[in-house]
């Protein structure tokens, strides 16, 4: 439930309580319902408030909190999946460094893993939009910027050249630095989602 809907529900509840009080006051002289004149209005209001809180807190507030928590858990899982896919790219580079070679098939696989990552980012973005439409989308835009930096480093430079057949120590080291930048960004995104 969005914040707008929550406010609407709260306002409707308040209106219902006030309407109930007003109707009660108007009808107090009807013969069918007789009120004890010793009962103070404040005591009735106190009773209604207690009853309302007893219903609202367990059924609505608790549900809102649980819904919010489960939505965040889903988003965090999506980020973990993105990290897991990017880790596969890191493993390929690590293995290529160990074996001192990289094939065209491995480069194609890296491109495909980037495609998979983009599908996951797109899914995360859509889910974020649905659940937190009122909040600024800075988490996703920062993540995308860092992701494109990492992708541009790997697929926008020497790795894609047909003459690049050996992952040397320099490339391995540079890649590690770039990878940890995107990894840190993803981990920070998890914290940011928890703070929403």
């Amino acid at each position, binding site marked *: 439930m969005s914040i707008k809907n929550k406010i609407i529900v709260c306002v409707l509840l308040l209106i219902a309580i006030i309407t109930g009080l007003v109707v009660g006051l108007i009808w107090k002289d009807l013969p069918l319902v007789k009120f004890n004149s010793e009962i103070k209005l404040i005591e009735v209001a106190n009773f209604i408030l207690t009853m309302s809180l007893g219903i609202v807190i367990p059924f609505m507030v608790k549900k809102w909190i649980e819904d919010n928590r489960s939505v965040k858990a889903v988003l965090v899982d999506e980020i973990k999946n993105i990290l897991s896919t990017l880790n596969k790219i890191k493993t390929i580079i690590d293995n290529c460094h160990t074996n001192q070679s990289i094939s065209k098939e491995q480069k194609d696989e890296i491109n495909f893993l980037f495609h998979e990552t983009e599908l996951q980012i797109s899914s995360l973005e859509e889910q974020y939009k649905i659940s937190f439409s009122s909040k600024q989308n800075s988490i996703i835009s920062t993540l995308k910027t860092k992701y494109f930096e990492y992708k541009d480093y790997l697929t926008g430079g020497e790795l894609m050249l*047909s003459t690049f057949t050996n992952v040397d120590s320099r490339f391995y080291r540079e890649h590690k630095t770039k990878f940890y930048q995107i990894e840190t960004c993803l981990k920070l995104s998890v914290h940011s989602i928890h703070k929403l």
Partner: protein
Amino acid sequence: MEIKDTIIIAKDFAPTPGARYRRDGEFSGEQFLEELLLPKFEKAVEGNYILKIDLDKVWGYPSSFVSGSFGKLSLAKGSDLVLKHISFKSDENPIRLEKIIYEIKNPIKK
């Protein structure tokens, strides 16, 4: 304007696009630009119609390929004209589409 021509990259060019220049290896962005994209784009401008580019069913688009083809076309012809006469289809991956349009709007000279 209506769509009168289509390039399906996976079928008409390659399912595994390569690097930037021809000298960098097969299926480069430069090769795609010179053999397919530029001739068809110029015909689209001349005939005042839209060229549709289907981006699906490839392994992935290396950044150097995107820059060497769409980026280069944008540098040569201007982003407004490119986006006026080219429409993209990417049912598989919306982020891919976003990246290509960003490259057209912000081409990098390399």
